[in-house]
């Protein structure tokens, strides 16, 4: 064993004590820590909101139609990545690449819309320093945006890897797609809560 | 050593004794626990040291618990099987139970009642001294409500080196108010109601002799009370890191008789026009 020792062989192996591959378990534990991260931010949001004498209504101060568009985009991208997973499962390379490319385009679209939203606010001289509401709005959407960027990087990496035969045929590949998908859905779920919390309620 | 020594300083407030009782009781218990355990520990080390002809002996429960048969009489109770099979191991919980009983008693009969009498309620007194303490880097302003028992309002925009707490001197409530810097004078045996505030960072209002400590948090007005019961000169210190001169942030407390206090207050009030500019704590440095 020491002769042919291969550190990555274990990631491949579903015959573990738990029956879950290392990679999937790792992604889920990472998501657990992310849950705590966003739970803390939501706690801070609730505390600051309750402590303030008045809290603006999203329709009055933010661009709700753009945010609704962003919600639709993000949910759609969640579907496209799960479709990409389905294609990878069926070993349909062209299909996988098509759906993954769609996912990446949609997430870029999300960021572009977000940039328009931010841009309009900055133009009015509104920034994180304006009030606690804007502070939490910029911080939470900003952190979420950073997560989107990370997701785009991962998805783009997978799209590239699928074009290399060695990676595409690697039995680990499907697990990687699933992991990326899990992360992407998590980012989607965070937005599902952020959207009403900041814009609607 | 006088008032201060290697142990608790002199107790000069009505509840200081209660706090000291807890501190001494717990330390006695700690010492008892430590000495008993220490003796047992040393005994074990000596008795079971490795030496020729002495071998380690496994405890009975080290063998597989599967072989221990549980008496029928108790086997029906929930967890009885598990507990009985591990009964050798569970011996280690006996000291735990003793300590836990002590702790429960301490909490139920001491901590919760005394805590709520000190921190979450104010004694119902007829004629309290009303004071507002405003902390800043690096000093304390003590704002007396005066005989009318009403604190004059403060306004942030009035804050000035000559008026560190921004007291609105034009307001009628401020007419008999006195503001002192780093100095607090209190009548003995009379309850003082204190509002604790901070202008900048978190400070902590600590008078060791009164066993009184409370953080001053900007944006919050934190109520507290104390009834000094010994005349003398004591010390206010800041117990929470508040900047480079944190250690210099101190003041004096003088507990005096009611007559002395009244005389002093009147003298302050009489000189008030001249001292409408109260002592500025910031100038102390």
């Amino acid at each position: 064993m020491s002769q042919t020792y291969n550190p990555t062989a274990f990631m491949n192996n579903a015959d573990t004590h738990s029956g879950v591959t290392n990679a999937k378990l790792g992604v889920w534990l990472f998501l657990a820590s992310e849950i705590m991260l966003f739970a803390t931010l939501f706690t801070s949001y609730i505390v600051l909101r309750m402590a303030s004498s008045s809290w603006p209504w999203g329709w009055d101060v933010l661009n709700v139609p753009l945010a609704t568009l962003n919600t639709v985009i993000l949910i759609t991208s969640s579907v496209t990545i799960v479709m990409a997973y389905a294609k990878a499962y069926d070993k349909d390379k062209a299909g996988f690449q098509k759906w993954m490319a769609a996912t990446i385009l949609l997430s870029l679209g999300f960021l572009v819309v977000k940039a328009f939203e931010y841009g309009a606010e900055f133009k009015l001289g509104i920034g994180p320093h304006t009030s606690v509401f804007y502070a939490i709005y910029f911080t939470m959407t900003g952190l979420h945006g950073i997560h989107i960027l990370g997701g785009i990087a991962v998805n783009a990496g997978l799209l590239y890897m699928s074009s290399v035969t060695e990676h595409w045929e690697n039995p680990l590949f499907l697990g990687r797609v699933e992991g990326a998908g899990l992360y992407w859905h998590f980012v989607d779920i965070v937005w599902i809560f952020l959207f009403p919390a900041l814009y609607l309620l | 050593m006088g008032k201060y020594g290697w142990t608790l300083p002199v107790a000069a407030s009505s509840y200081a004794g209660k706090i000291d009782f807890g501190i001494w009781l717990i330390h006695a218990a700690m010492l008892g626990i430590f000495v008993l355990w220490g003796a047992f520990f040393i005994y074990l080390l000596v008795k079971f040291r490795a030496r020729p002809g002495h071998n380690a002996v496994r405890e009975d429960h080290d063998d597989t618990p599967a072989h221990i048969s549980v008496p029928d009489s108790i086997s029906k109770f929930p967890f009885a099987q598990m507990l009985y099979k591990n009964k050798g191991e569970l011996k280690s919980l006996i000291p735990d139970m003793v300590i836990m009983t002590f702790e429960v008693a301490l909490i139920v009969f001491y901590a919760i009642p005394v805590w709520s009498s000190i921190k979450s309620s104010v004694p119902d007194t007829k004629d309290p001294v009303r004071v507002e303490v405003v902390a800043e880097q690096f000093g304390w302003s003590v704002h007396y409500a005066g005989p009318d028992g009403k604190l004059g309002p403060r306004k942030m925009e009035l804050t000035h080196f000559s008026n560190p707490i921004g007291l609105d001197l034009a307001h009628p409530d401020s007419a008999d108010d006195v503001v002192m810097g780093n100095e607090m004078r209190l009548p003995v045996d009379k309850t003082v109601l204190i509002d604790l505030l901070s202008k900048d960072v978190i400070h902590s209002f600590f008078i060791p002799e009164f066993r009184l400590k409370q953080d001053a948090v900007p944006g919050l007005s934190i109520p507290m009370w104390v009834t000094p019961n010994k005349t003398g000169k004591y010390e206010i210190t800041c117990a929470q890191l508040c900047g480079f001169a944190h250690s210099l942030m101190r003041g004096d407390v003088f507990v005096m008789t009611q007559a002395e206090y009244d005389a002093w207050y009147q003298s302050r009030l009489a000189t008030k026009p001249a001292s409408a500019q109260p002592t500025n704590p910031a100038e102390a440095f």
Partner: protein
Amino acid sequence: MSKNNDSRHDEHRPDVGLYVKVFLALMVLTLITVAISKIHLPRPQAIALGLFVALIKASLVGALFMHLWGENKLIHKALFITVGFGAVLILPIIDFVMVSRRITSPADVAAQHPGGHGGHAEAVSESVKLDAPAVPAKGH
């Protein structure tokens, strides 16, 4: 340790039809939340309803897109533990609720007990509770 090199049995068989149905449901729910927020409900009700819809959406994504439905028990356990510890973060919120309702000034205490009765300075039994939500907090 390596008798089984096929990792597939751990992954989930995708169900495209289901994904499309979930997608449609999510779209409808999104429109519903936006619509709800447009009719001016009282804030507490609006918040409750909005979070309820968000919770349904999140569960749909979690259960069906992330395949939590029928996932290995270990992952369920890990998530339950996380949610349990996350729930502890409610305590700071409770603290702020209690602090904001605290009587912030002994003046309020005096207002509650006009005239003062009984001169027992240390009579705890007659004392006023500082945490009681009797008087609205002064805005700070």
